[in-house]
Protein backbone atom coordinates (compact mmCIF):
# COMPACT_ATOMS: atom_id res chain seq x y z
CA UNK A 1 0.00 0.00 0.00
CA UNK A 2 1.11 3.48 -0.77
CA UNK A 3 2.82 5.63 1.81
CA UNK A 4 0.94 8.57 3.23
CA UNK A 5 3.15 11.27 1.87
CA UNK A 6 3.31 10.64 -1.81
CA UNK A 7 6.75 11.01 -3.21
CA UNK A 8 5.76 9.35 -6.42
CA UNK A 9 7.89 10.72 -9.20
CA UNK A 10 5.76 12.04 -12.05
CA UNK A 11 8.04 13.01 -14.91
CA UNK A 12 7.36 16.10 -16.93
CA UNK A 13 6.93 16.11 -20.66
CA UNK A 14 9.07 13.71 -22.62
CA UNK A 15 9.70 13.63 -26.36
CA UNK A 16 10.58 9.93 -26.43
CA UNK A 17 7.12 8.38 -26.61
CA UNK A 18 6.32 10.52 -29.62
CA UNK A 19 9.61 9.54 -31.24
CA UNK A 20 8.74 5.91 -30.53
CA UNK A 21 5.33 6.21 -32.16
CA UNK A 22 6.74 8.01 -35.18
CA UNK A 23 9.40 5.32 -35.59
CA UNK A 24 6.80 2.58 -35.35
CA UNK A 25 4.78 4.37 -38.00
CA UNK A 26 7.78 4.57 -40.31
CA UNK A 27 8.60 0.93 -39.69
CA UNK A 28 5.07 -0.19 -40.49
CA UNK A 29 5.08 1.90 -43.63
CA UNK A 30 8.46 0.52 -44.67
CA UNK A 31 7.38 -3.04 -43.97
CA UNK A 32 4.26 -2.61 -46.05
CA UNK A 33 6.19 -1.04 -48.93
CA UNK A 34 8.70 -3.84 -48.82
CA UNK A 35 6.04 -6.56 -48.88
CA UNK A 36 4.39 -4.81 -51.78
CA UNK A 37 7.67 -5.06 -53.66
CA UNK A 38 8.78 -1.46 -53.49
CA UNK A 39 12.54 -0.85 -53.56
CA UNK A 40 12.29 1.89 -50.96
CA UNK A 41 10.67 -0.47 -48.49
CA UNK A 42 13.73 -1.84 -46.78
CA UNK A 43 15.35 1.58 -46.42
CA UNK A 44 12.21 3.00 -44.84
CA UNK A 45 11.94 0.00 -42.55
CA UNK A 46 15.50 0.44 -41.33
CA UNK A 47 14.98 4.16 -40.92
CA UNK A 48 12.14 3.39 -38.54
CA UNK A 49 14.24 0.79 -36.76
CA UNK A 50 17.04 3.33 -36.35
CA UNK A 51 14.52 5.75 -34.86
CA UNK A 52 13.45 3.07 -32.39
CA UNK A 53 17.03 2.42 -31.36
CA UNK A 54 17.69 6.12 -30.82
CA UNK A 55 14.48 6.29 -28.84
CA UNK A 56 15.52 3.34 -26.66
CA UNK A 57 18.80 5.01 -25.78
CA UNK A 58 17.12 8.32 -25.13
CA UNK A 59 14.22 7.00 -23.09
CA UNK A 60 16.07 4.38 -21.08
CA UNK A 61 18.94 6.81 -20.62
CA UNK A 62 16.55 9.30 -19.04
CA UNK A 63 15.16 6.63 -16.77
CA UNK A 64 18.64 5.54 -15.69
CA UNK A 65 19.67 9.14 -15.00
CA UNK A 66 16.54 9.78 -12.99
CA UNK A 67 17.17 6.62 -11.04
CA UNK A 68 20.75 7.55 -10.26
CA UNK A 69 19.57 11.01 -9.23
CA UNK A 70 17.49 9.24 -6.60
CA UNK A 71 14.12 10.41 -7.87
CA UNK A 72 12.55 6.97 -7.64
CA UNK A 73 10.91 5.70 -4.51
CA UNK A 74 10.33 2.07 -3.73
CA UNK A 75 6.84 2.55 -5.10
CA UNK A 76 8.12 3.64 -8.50
CA UNK A 77 10.33 0.58 -8.48
CA UNK A 78 7.29 -1.57 -7.82
CA UNK A 79 5.47 0.04 -10.73
CA UNK A 80 8.34 -0.83 -13.03
CA UNK A 81 8.48 -4.39 -11.80
CA UNK A 82 4.75 -4.97 -12.13
CA UNK A 83 4.78 -3.33 -15.53
CA UNK A 84 7.55 -5.62 -16.72
CA UNK A 85 5.81 -8.68 -15.30
CA UNK A 86 2.62 -7.89 -17.18
CA UNK A 87 4.54 -7.15 -20.34
CA UNK A 88 6.08 -10.59 -20.12
CA UNK A 89 2.64 -12.06 -19.56
CA UNK A 90 1.45 -10.43 -22.78
CA UNK A 91 4.40 -12.05 -24.55
CA UNK A 92 3.38 -15.39 -23.09
CA UNK A 93 -0.05 -14.91 -24.59
CA UNK A 94 1.51 -14.08 -27.95
CA UNK A 95 3.33 -17.42 -27.92
CA UNK A 96 0.16 -19.05 -26.66
CA UNK A 97 -1.47 -18.13 -29.96
CA UNK A 98 1.20 -19.94 -31.94
CA UNK A 99 1.24 -22.93 -29.62
CA UNK A 100 -2.53 -22.97 -29.98
CA UNK A 101 -2.09 -23.21 -33.75
CA UNK A 102 0.33 -26.09 -33.30
CA UNK A 103 -1.98 -28.00 -30.97
CA UNK A 104 -5.01 -27.34 -33.15
CA UNK A 105 -3.21 -28.55 -36.24
CA UNK A 106 -1.81 -31.64 -34.58
CA UNK A 107 -4.84 -32.79 -32.64
CA UNK A 108 -7.68 -31.58 -34.91
CA UNK A 109 -6.90 -30.23 -38.37
CA UNK A 110 -4.49 -32.89 -39.57
CA UNK A 111 -6.42 -35.87 -38.17
CA UNK A 112 -9.58 -34.51 -39.80
CA UNK A 113 -7.79 -34.26 -43.12
CA UNK A 114 -6.86 -37.88 -42.56
CA UNK A 115 -10.50 -38.86 -42.11
CA UNK A 116 -10.83 -39.04 -38.36
CA UNK A 117 -13.71 -37.56 -36.38
CA UNK A 118 -15.72 -35.13 -38.47
CA UNK A 119 -13.25 -35.52 -41.33
CA UNK A 120 -14.51 -38.68 -43.01
CA UNK A 121 -16.05 -36.76 -45.88
CA UNK A 122 -13.04 -34.51 -46.18
CA UNK A 123 -10.76 -37.45 -46.61
CA UNK A 124 -12.88 -39.57 -48.89
CA UNK A 125 -14.11 -36.80 -51.18
CA UNK A 126 -11.20 -34.37 -51.33
CA UNK A 127 -8.04 -36.06 -50.19
CA UNK A 128 -8.42 -39.81 -50.72
CA UNK A 129 -5.35 -41.65 -49.59
CA UNK A 130 -4.00 -38.94 -47.34
CA UNK A 131 -2.84 -40.38 -44.08
CA UNK A 132 -2.52 -38.17 -41.07
CA UNK A 133 0.90 -38.47 -39.46
CA UNK A 134 2.83 -35.79 -37.70
CA UNK A 135 4.98 -34.17 -38.99
CA UNK A 136 3.23 -33.45 -42.25
CA UNK A 137 3.10 -30.86 -44.97
CA UNK A 138 -0.45 -31.68 -45.86
CA UNK A 139 -2.31 -33.67 -48.48
CA UNK A 140 -0.72 -31.72 -51.31
CA UNK A 141 2.73 -32.02 -49.74
CA UNK A 142 3.22 -28.28 -49.88
CA UNK A 143 6.93 -27.52 -50.12
CA UNK A 144 7.94 -30.99 -51.31
CA UNK A 145 9.28 -33.97 -49.41
CA UNK A 146 11.26 -33.15 -46.32
CA UNK A 147 12.83 -34.70 -43.27
CA UNK A 148 11.67 -33.61 -39.84
CA UNK A 149 14.05 -32.05 -37.36
CA UNK A 150 15.11 -34.50 -34.69
CA UNK A 151 15.47 -33.49 -31.08
CA UNK A 152 18.89 -34.92 -30.39
CA UNK A 153 22.05 -33.07 -31.34
CA UNK A 154 21.70 -29.32 -31.72
CA UNK A 155 18.27 -28.85 -30.16
CA UNK A 156 19.32 -30.85 -27.14
CA UNK A 157 22.56 -28.91 -26.89
CA UNK A 158 20.62 -25.68 -27.16
CA UNK A 159 18.31 -26.77 -24.39
CA UNK A 160 21.32 -27.38 -22.19
CA UNK A 161 22.77 -23.99 -23.11
CA UNK A 162 19.64 -22.06 -22.28
CA UNK A 163 18.99 -23.94 -19.07
CA UNK A 164 22.58 -23.27 -18.03
CA UNK A 165 22.16 -19.60 -18.86
CA UNK A 166 19.14 -19.41 -16.58
CA UNK A 167 21.35 -20.76 -13.81
CA UNK A 168 24.16 -18.32 -14.49
CA UNK A 169 21.85 -15.31 -14.48
CA UNK A 170 20.42 -16.45 -11.17
CA UNK A 171 23.92 -16.75 -9.73
CA UNK A 172 24.65 -13.27 -11.04
CA UNK A 173 21.52 -11.98 -9.38
CA UNK A 174 22.53 -13.45 -6.04
CA UNK A 175 25.97 -11.98 -6.46
CA UNK A 176 24.39 -8.59 -7.08
CA UNK A 177 22.36 -8.86 -3.92
CA UNK A 178 25.46 -9.86 -1.97
CA UNK A 179 27.51 -7.03 -3.47
CA UNK A 180 29.90 -9.44 -5.12
CA UNK A 181 30.57 -7.29 -8.18
CA UNK A 182 33.19 -9.51 -9.78
CA UNK A 183 30.98 -12.55 -9.62
CA UNK A 184 28.09 -10.48 -10.92
CA UNK A 185 30.16 -9.27 -13.83
CA UNK A 186 31.48 -12.73 -14.73
CA UNK A 187 28.19 -14.58 -14.51
CA UNK A 188 26.34 -11.95 -16.50
CA UNK A 189 29.04 -12.26 -19.12
CA UNK A 190 28.67 -16.03 -19.02
CA UNK A 191 24.94 -15.64 -19.62
CA UNK A 192 25.63 -13.45 -22.63
CA UNK A 193 28.05 -16.00 -24.01
CA UNK A 194 25.60 -18.86 -23.53
CA UNK A 195 22.84 -16.85 -25.18
CA UNK A 196 24.96 -15.96 -28.17
CA UNK A 197 26.07 -19.57 -28.48
CA UNK A 198 22.43 -20.61 -28.49
CA UNK A 199 21.72 -18.21 -31.31
CA UNK A 200 24.71 -19.43 -33.25
CA UNK A 201 23.60 -23.03 -33.06
CA UNK A 202 20.07 -22.02 -33.93
CA UNK A 203 21.36 -20.49 -37.14
CA UNK A 204 23.37 -23.63 -37.86
CA UNK A 205 20.24 -25.68 -37.31
CA UNK A 206 18.24 -23.51 -39.71
CA UNK A 207 20.91 -23.83 -42.39
CA UNK A 208 20.89 -27.58 -41.89
CA UNK A 209 17.08 -27.63 -42.17
CA UNK A 210 17.03 -25.61 -45.37
CA UNK A 211 19.97 -27.27 -47.08
CA UNK A 212 19.91 -30.86 -45.93
CA UNK A 213 16.38 -31.60 -44.82
CA UNK A 214 14.45 -29.46 -47.32
CA UNK A 215 12.56 -28.26 -44.27
CA UNK A 216 11.44 -24.71 -44.90
CA UNK A 217 9.02 -22.10 -43.69
CA UNK A 218 6.88 -23.12 -46.65
CA UNK A 219 6.93 -26.83 -45.79
CA UNK A 220 3.23 -27.10 -45.07
CA UNK A 221 1.89 -26.86 -41.56
CA UNK A 222 4.92 -28.53 -40.01
CA UNK A 223 7.37 -26.06 -41.50
CA UNK A 224 5.04 -23.17 -40.66
CA UNK A 225 4.67 -24.03 -37.01
CA UNK A 226 8.29 -25.11 -36.64
CA UNK A 227 9.82 -21.97 -38.05
CA UNK A 228 7.32 -19.49 -36.69
CA UNK A 229 7.61 -20.82 -33.15
CA UNK A 230 11.37 -21.26 -33.12
CA UNK A 231 11.82 -18.10 -35.16
CA UNK A 232 9.83 -15.87 -32.82
CA UNK A 233 11.61 -17.51 -29.92
CA UNK A 234 14.94 -16.80 -31.58
CA UNK A 235 13.92 -13.18 -32.09
CA UNK A 236 13.15 -12.93 -28.41
CA UNK A 237 16.46 -14.50 -27.48
CA UNK A 238 18.19 -11.98 -29.70
CA UNK A 239 16.40 -9.15 -27.96
CA UNK A 240 17.17 -10.67 -24.59
CA UNK A 241 20.82 -11.07 -25.51
CA UNK A 242 21.06 -7.42 -26.54
CA UNK A 243 19.46 -6.38 -23.28
CA UNK A 244 21.92 -8.62 -21.44
CA UNK A 245 24.84 -7.01 -23.19
CA UNK A 246 23.60 -3.55 -22.24
CA UNK A 247 23.12 -4.77 -18.69
CA UNK A 248 26.63 -6.13 -18.64
CA UNK A 249 28.01 -2.80 -19.83
CA UNK A 250 26.04 -1.06 -17.12
CA UNK A 251 27.43 -3.46 -14.54
CA UNK A 252 30.91 -2.62 -15.74
CA UNK A 253 30.06 1.03 -15.18
CA UNK A 254 29.06 0.30 -11.62
CA UNK A 255 25.28 0.57 -12.04
CA UNK A 256 22.80 -1.35 -9.84
CA UNK A 257 22.88 -1.66 -6.09
CA UNK A 258 21.93 -4.63 -3.93
CA UNK A 259 18.58 -2.97 -3.21
CA UNK A 260 17.81 -1.18 -6.44
CA UNK A 261 18.37 -3.05 -9.63
CA UNK A 262 15.12 -3.07 -11.51
CA UNK A 263 16.97 -2.96 -14.84
CA UNK A 264 18.87 -6.09 -14.01
CA UNK A 265 15.87 -7.88 -12.65
CA UNK A 266 13.71 -7.07 -15.67
CA UNK A 267 16.30 -8.56 -18.00
CA UNK A 268 16.65 -11.60 -15.78
CA UNK A 269 12.90 -12.18 -15.83
CA UNK A 270 12.82 -11.76 -19.54
CA UNK A 271 15.60 -14.27 -19.88
CA UNK A 272 13.80 -16.81 -17.71
CA UNK A 273 10.74 -16.26 -19.89
CA UNK A 274 12.56 -17.10 -23.12
CA UNK A 275 13.99 -20.10 -21.34
CA UNK A 276 10.59 -21.40 -20.33
CA UNK A 277 9.26 -20.86 -23.82
CA UNK A 278 12.18 -22.85 -25.15
CA UNK A 279 11.48 -25.74 -22.82
CA UNK A 280 7.90 -25.82 -24.09
CA UNK A 281 9.18 -25.63 -27.66
CA UNK A 282 11.63 -28.41 -27.07
CA UNK A 283 8.92 -30.65 -25.73
CA UNK A 284 6.09 -29.86 -28.12
CA UNK A 285 7.90 -28.98 -31.32
CA UNK A 286 10.92 -31.27 -31.21
CA UNK A 287 10.33 -34.24 -28.93
CA UNK A 288 6.63 -35.07 -29.15
Amino acid at each position, binding site marked *: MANTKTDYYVPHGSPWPAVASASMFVMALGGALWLNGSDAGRAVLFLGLAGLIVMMFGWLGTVIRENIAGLYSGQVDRSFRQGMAWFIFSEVMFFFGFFGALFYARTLAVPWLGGEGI*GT*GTNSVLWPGFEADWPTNGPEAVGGSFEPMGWGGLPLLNTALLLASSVTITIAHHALKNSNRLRLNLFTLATVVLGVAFLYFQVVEYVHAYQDLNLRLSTGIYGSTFFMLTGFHGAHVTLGAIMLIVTWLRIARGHFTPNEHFGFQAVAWYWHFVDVVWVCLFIFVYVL
Partner: protein
Amino acid sequence: MNRSKAHGGWAILALAAGALAAAAPAGADWALDFPASASDLGNKIRGLHHTALIICVVIGIVVFGALGYSLVKFRKSQGAQAAKFSHSTKAEIIWTVIPVLILIGLAIPSARVLIEMEDTQSADLRIVITGYQWKWRYEYPDHGISFFSNITEESQAAAVLGAGLELHEHYLRDVDRPMVVPVGRKVKLQLTSNDVIHAWWIPELYVKRDAVPGTINETWFQAEKTGVYRGQCAELCGRGHAFMPIVVEVLEQEEFDAWVAGLTEPPAEPEAIISNASADAGSGLAGR
Protein backbone atom coordinates in the same frame (compact mmCIF):
# COMPACT_ATOMS: atom_id res chain seq x y z
CA MET B 1 -37.84 15.61 -16.38
CA ASN B 2 -39.26 18.01 -18.89
CA ARG B 3 -42.24 16.45 -20.63
CA SER B 4 -42.69 18.95 -23.43
CA LYS B 5 -39.12 18.27 -24.52
CA ALA B 6 -39.78 14.61 -24.96
CA HIS B 7 -42.50 15.30 -27.49
CA GLY B 8 -39.99 16.69 -29.95
CA GLY B 9 -38.61 13.22 -30.55
CA TRP B 10 -41.99 11.68 -31.20
CA ALA B 11 -42.86 14.42 -33.64
CA ILE B 12 -39.75 13.67 -35.69
CA LEU B 13 -40.52 9.99 -35.52
CA ALA B 14 -44.05 10.52 -36.77
CA LEU B 15 -42.68 12.60 -39.61
CA ALA B 16 -40.25 9.85 -40.51
CA ALA B 17 -43.00 7.24 -40.45
CA GLY B 18 -45.06 9.39 -42.76
CA ALA B 19 -42.19 9.74 -45.21
CA LEU B 20 -41.72 6.00 -45.11
CA ALA B 21 -45.33 5.22 -45.80
CA ALA B 22 -45.08 7.41 -48.86
CA ALA B 23 -41.87 5.82 -50.09
CA ALA B 24 -42.55 2.14 -49.47
CA PRO B 25 -43.70 0.12 -52.47
CA ALA B 26 -47.01 -1.65 -52.28
CA GLY B 27 -47.16 -5.27 -51.21
CA ALA B 28 -45.09 -4.77 -48.10
CA ASP B 29 -44.02 -7.95 -46.40
CA TRP B 30 -43.53 -6.94 -42.77
CA ALA B 31 -42.53 -10.47 -41.76
CA LEU B 32 -41.79 -10.51 -38.03
CA ASP B 33 -40.83 -14.10 -37.47
CA PHE B 34 -38.90 -17.04 -38.84
CA PRO B 35 -40.35 -18.32 -42.11
CA ALA B 36 -42.70 -21.30 -41.99
CA SER B 37 -40.69 -24.48 -42.07
CA ALA B 38 -40.75 -27.05 -44.84
CA SER B 39 -39.10 -29.72 -42.71
CA ASP B 40 -39.77 -31.42 -39.38
CA LEU B 41 -36.40 -30.45 -38.01
CA GLY B 42 -37.14 -26.90 -39.07
CA ASN B 43 -40.34 -26.94 -37.06
CA LYS B 44 -38.39 -28.01 -34.00
CA ILE B 45 -35.85 -25.24 -34.51
CA ARG B 46 -38.61 -22.73 -35.01
CA GLY B 47 -40.26 -23.97 -31.86
CA LEU B 48 -37.01 -23.62 -29.96
CA HIS B 49 -36.74 -20.06 -31.18
CA HIS B 50 -40.25 -19.35 -29.94
CA THR B 51 -39.56 -20.92 -26.56
CA ALA B 52 -36.43 -18.82 -26.13
CA LEU B 53 -38.23 -15.70 -27.27
CA ILE B 54 -41.10 -16.23 -24.85
CA ILE B 55 -38.71 -16.85 -21.96
CA CYS B 56 -36.89 -13.64 -22.79
CA VAL B 57 -40.10 -11.67 -23.09
CA VAL B 58 -41.33 -12.93 -19.74
CA ILE B 59 -38.05 -12.14 -18.01
CA GLY B 60 -38.12 -8.81 -19.78
CA ILE B 61 -41.58 -8.03 -18.44
CA VAL B 62 -40.44 -8.85 -14.91
CA VAL B 63 -37.20 -6.87 -15.16
CA PHE B 64 -38.58 -3.85 -16.97
CA GLY B 65 -41.69 -3.94 -14.84
CA ALA B 66 -39.62 -3.74 -11.67
CA LEU B 67 -37.53 -0.99 -13.21
CA GLY B 68 -40.53 1.03 -14.32
CA TYR B 69 -42.16 0.60 -10.93
CA SER B 70 -39.04 1.89 -9.16
CA LEU B 71 -38.71 4.84 -11.49
CA VAL B 72 -42.28 5.88 -10.86
CA LYS B 73 -42.54 5.01 -7.19
CA PHE B 74 -39.20 6.15 -5.85
CA ARG B 75 -38.84 9.53 -7.47
CA LYS B 76 -37.13 12.26 -5.50
CA SER B 77 -39.55 14.75 -6.99
CA GLN B 78 -42.35 12.81 -5.27
CA GLY B 79 -40.55 13.07 -1.97
CA ALA B 80 -39.11 9.56 -1.90
CA GLN B 81 -36.55 9.07 0.87
CA ALA B 82 -33.61 6.80 0.09
CA ALA B 83 -33.33 3.61 2.11
CA LYS B 84 -29.89 2.57 3.27
CA PHE B 85 -29.71 -1.18 2.56
CA SER B 86 -26.99 -2.41 0.28
CA HIS B 87 -27.21 -6.16 0.23
CA SER B 88 -29.43 -9.13 0.85
CA THR B 89 -27.96 -12.57 0.56
CA LYS B 90 -31.38 -14.12 0.15
CA ALA B 91 -32.31 -11.96 -2.84
CA GLU B 92 -28.95 -12.56 -4.45
CA ILE B 93 -29.27 -16.31 -4.12
CA ILE B 94 -32.74 -16.18 -5.63
CA TRP B 95 -31.71 -14.24 -8.68
CA THR B 96 -28.72 -16.45 -9.25
CA VAL B 97 -30.51 -19.76 -8.86
CA ILE B 98 -33.65 -18.98 -10.85
CA PRO B 99 -31.77 -17.99 -14.02
CA VAL B 100 -29.63 -21.12 -13.67
CA LEU B 101 -32.78 -23.25 -13.58
CA ILE B 102 -34.27 -21.42 -16.55
CA LEU B 103 -31.09 -21.91 -18.53
CA ILE B 104 -30.95 -25.61 -17.74
CA GLY B 105 -34.56 -25.83 -18.87
CA LEU B 106 -33.61 -24.19 -22.14
CA ALA B 107 -30.39 -26.11 -22.68
CA ILE B 108 -32.01 -29.53 -22.60
CA PRO B 109 -34.38 -29.11 -25.57
CA SER B 110 -31.64 -27.27 -27.46
CA ALA B 111 -29.26 -30.13 -26.92
CA ARG B 112 -31.88 -32.59 -28.16
CA VAL B 113 -32.47 -30.70 -31.38
CA LEU B 114 -28.74 -30.22 -31.78
CA ILE B 115 -28.12 -33.94 -31.60
CA GLU B 116 -30.80 -34.60 -34.20
CA MET B 117 -29.48 -31.83 -36.41
CA GLU B 118 -26.00 -33.29 -36.43
CA ASP B 119 -27.07 -36.83 -37.33
CA THR B 120 -26.17 -37.24 -41.00
CA GLN B 121 -26.48 -41.03 -40.92
CA SER B 122 -28.68 -43.10 -43.26
CA ALA B 123 -29.34 -40.50 -45.90
CA ASP B 124 -31.24 -41.35 -49.09
CA LEU B 125 -29.36 -39.01 -51.36
CA ARG B 126 -25.95 -37.39 -51.28
CA ILE B 127 -25.09 -34.11 -52.97
CA VAL B 128 -21.66 -32.51 -53.06
CA ILE B 129 -21.92 -28.73 -53.14
CA THR B 130 -18.98 -26.55 -54.04
CA GLY B 131 -18.94 -22.80 -53.61
CA TYR B 132 -17.18 -20.56 -56.12
CA GLN B 133 -16.77 -16.83 -56.35
CA TRP B 134 -19.70 -16.43 -57.19
CA LYS B 135 -21.77 -19.45 -58.08
CA TRP B 136 -22.51 -22.93 -56.83
CA ARG B 137 -21.80 -26.34 -58.26
CA TYR B 138 -24.00 -29.30 -57.47
CA GLU B 139 -22.78 -32.81 -57.93
CA TYR B 140 -24.89 -35.95 -57.48
CA PRO B 141 -22.15 -38.57 -57.21
CA ASP B 142 -24.58 -41.49 -57.19
CA HIS B 143 -26.20 -40.32 -60.43
CA GLY B 144 -23.17 -38.91 -62.20
CA ILE B 145 -24.76 -35.49 -62.48
CA SER B 146 -22.90 -32.26 -62.01
CA PHE B 147 -23.75 -28.71 -62.96
CA PHE B 148 -23.23 -25.07 -62.04
CA SER B 149 -25.94 -22.85 -60.70
CA ASN B 150 -25.65 -19.13 -61.44
CA ILE B 151 -27.71 -16.12 -60.61
CA THR B 152 -29.97 -15.31 -63.56
CA GLU B 153 -28.59 -12.74 -65.96
CA GLU B 154 -31.48 -10.48 -65.19
CA SER B 155 -30.53 -10.32 -61.52
CA GLN B 156 -26.81 -10.37 -62.26
CA ALA B 157 -27.17 -7.08 -64.06
CA ALA B 158 -28.09 -5.61 -60.71
CA ALA B 159 -24.54 -6.04 -59.47
CA VAL B 160 -23.60 -3.00 -61.50
CA LEU B 161 -23.81 0.31 -59.75
CA GLY B 162 -26.82 2.34 -60.76
CA ALA B 163 -28.29 -0.38 -62.95
CA GLY B 164 -31.70 0.77 -61.83
CA LEU B 165 -33.38 -2.58 -62.32
CA GLU B 166 -37.01 -3.23 -62.51
CA LEU B 167 -37.44 -5.13 -59.25
CA HIS B 168 -39.44 -8.31 -59.44
CA GLU B 169 -40.58 -10.70 -56.77
CA HIS B 170 -37.55 -12.98 -56.79
CA TYR B 171 -35.02 -10.27 -57.50
CA LEU B 172 -31.57 -11.60 -56.49
CA ARG B 173 -33.01 -14.98 -55.58
CA ASP B 174 -33.33 -16.52 -59.03
CA VAL B 175 -30.88 -18.99 -60.53
CA ASP B 176 -30.53 -20.49 -63.97
CA ARG B 177 -30.42 -24.10 -62.74
CA PRO B 178 -31.80 -25.00 -59.32
CA MET B 179 -30.68 -27.91 -57.21
CA VAL B 180 -33.33 -30.61 -57.38
CA VAL B 181 -34.25 -33.12 -54.66
CA PRO B 182 -37.07 -35.56 -53.98
CA VAL B 183 -39.63 -34.80 -51.30
CA GLY B 184 -39.65 -36.73 -48.02
CA ARG B 185 -36.12 -38.04 -48.44
CA LYS B 186 -33.15 -37.36 -46.22
CA VAL B 187 -30.63 -35.47 -48.31
CA LYS B 188 -27.06 -35.37 -47.10
CA LEU B 189 -25.03 -32.39 -48.20
CA GLN B 190 -21.27 -32.41 -48.44
CA LEU B 191 -20.03 -28.85 -48.71
CA THR B 192 -16.71 -27.50 -49.82
CA SER B 193 -15.37 -24.52 -51.67
CA ASN B 194 -13.03 -23.77 -54.48
CA ASP B 195 -11.76 -20.42 -53.23
CA VAL B 196 -12.99 -18.61 -50.13
CA ILE B 197 -15.49 -19.61 -47.48
CA HIS B 198 -19.14 -19.52 -48.53
CA ALA B 199 -22.20 -20.75 -46.69
CA TRP B 200 -25.09 -22.68 -48.15
CA TRP B 201 -28.41 -21.64 -46.72
CA ILE B 202 -32.10 -22.22 -47.35
CA PRO B 203 -34.11 -20.44 -44.63
CA GLU B 204 -37.29 -22.46 -45.05
CA LEU B 205 -35.39 -25.73 -44.78
CA TYR B 206 -33.51 -24.48 -41.71
CA VAL B 207 -30.18 -25.61 -43.00
CA LYS B 208 -27.03 -23.52 -43.15
CA ARG B 209 -23.46 -24.72 -43.32
CA ASP B 210 -20.16 -23.17 -44.28
CA ALA B 211 -18.42 -24.32 -47.43
CA VAL B 212 -14.76 -24.25 -46.47
CA PRO B 213 -11.98 -24.73 -49.03
CA GLY B 214 -10.03 -27.94 -48.48
CA THR B 215 -12.53 -29.57 -46.13
CA ILE B 216 -15.91 -31.20 -46.41
CA ASN B 217 -18.67 -30.11 -44.08
CA GLU B 218 -21.66 -32.36 -43.74
CA THR B 219 -25.24 -31.54 -42.98
CA TRP B 220 -28.67 -32.70 -44.06
CA PHE B 221 -32.28 -31.75 -44.63
CA GLN B 222 -35.51 -33.47 -45.46
CA ALA B 223 -38.16 -31.41 -47.19
CA GLU B 224 -41.69 -32.52 -46.42
CA LYS B 225 -43.42 -30.34 -48.99
CA THR B 226 -42.78 -29.97 -52.69
CA GLY B 227 -42.06 -26.53 -54.00
CA VAL B 228 -39.32 -24.04 -54.73
CA TYR B 229 -37.19 -22.82 -51.83
CA ARG B 230 -34.92 -19.83 -52.08
CA GLY B 231 -31.91 -18.73 -50.12
CA GLN B 232 -28.50 -17.23 -50.69
CA CYS B 233 -24.86 -17.45 -49.72
CA ALA B 234 -24.53 -16.56 -46.06
CA GLU B 235 -20.82 -16.01 -45.57
CA LEU B 236 -19.11 -12.89 -46.87
CA CYS B 237 -17.20 -14.04 -49.94
CA GLY B 238 -16.21 -10.86 -51.72
CA ARG B 239 -17.75 -8.53 -54.24
CA GLY B 240 -20.45 -10.91 -55.42
CA HIS B 241 -21.56 -12.18 -52.01
CA ALA B 242 -25.03 -10.70 -52.35
CA PHE B 243 -25.33 -12.21 -55.79
CA MET B 244 -25.00 -15.95 -55.30
CA PRO B 245 -28.54 -17.17 -54.65
CA ILE B 246 -29.50 -20.74 -53.92
CA VAL B 247 -32.68 -22.31 -55.21
CA VAL B 248 -33.86 -25.80 -54.36
CA GLU B 249 -36.67 -27.45 -56.20
CA VAL B 250 -38.37 -30.19 -54.21
CA LEU B 251 -40.14 -32.67 -56.49
CA GLU B 252 -42.17 -35.83 -56.05
CA GLN B 253 -39.96 -38.92 -56.29
CA GLU B 254 -41.19 -39.80 -59.80
CA GLU B 255 -40.60 -36.29 -61.06
CA PHE B 256 -37.18 -36.35 -59.51
CA ASP B 257 -36.39 -39.66 -61.19
CA ALA B 258 -37.53 -38.21 -64.49
CA TRP B 259 -35.30 -35.19 -63.91
CA VAL B 260 -32.34 -37.47 -63.25
CA ALA B 261 -33.12 -39.53 -66.31
CA GLY B 262 -33.38 -36.43 -68.47
CA LEU B 263 -29.87 -35.44 -67.48
CA THR B 264 -28.16 -38.79 -67.53
CA GLU B 265 -29.62 -40.47 -70.61
CA PRO B 266 -28.17 -39.42 -73.91
CA PRO B 267 -28.81 -37.14 -75.61
CA ALA B 268 -28.36 -34.87 -72.63
CA GLU B 269 -28.19 -31.13 -72.90
CA PRO B 270 -24.51 -30.73 -73.66
CA GLU B 271 -23.81 -27.68 -71.55
CA ALA B 272 -25.63 -29.16 -68.60
CA ILE B 273 -23.03 -31.70 -67.73
CA ILE B 274 -19.79 -30.22 -66.73
CA SER B 275 -16.95 -32.56 -66.15
CA ASN B 276 -14.78 -32.31 -63.11
CA ALA B 277 -11.86 -31.23 -65.22
CA SER B 278 -13.40 -27.96 -66.30
CA ALA B 279 -14.78 -27.26 -62.89
CA ASP B 280 -12.09 -25.08 -61.50
CA ALA B 281 -12.89 -21.98 -63.45
CA GLY B 282 -12.62 -18.78 -61.50
CA SER B 283 -10.20 -20.10 -58.95
CA GLY B 284 -9.06 -17.36 -56.63
CA LEU B 285 -5.92 -16.62 -54.79
CA ALA B 286 -6.81 -19.22 -52.22
CA GLY B 287 -6.66 -22.02 -54.71
CA ARG B 288 -2.91 -21.79 -55.02
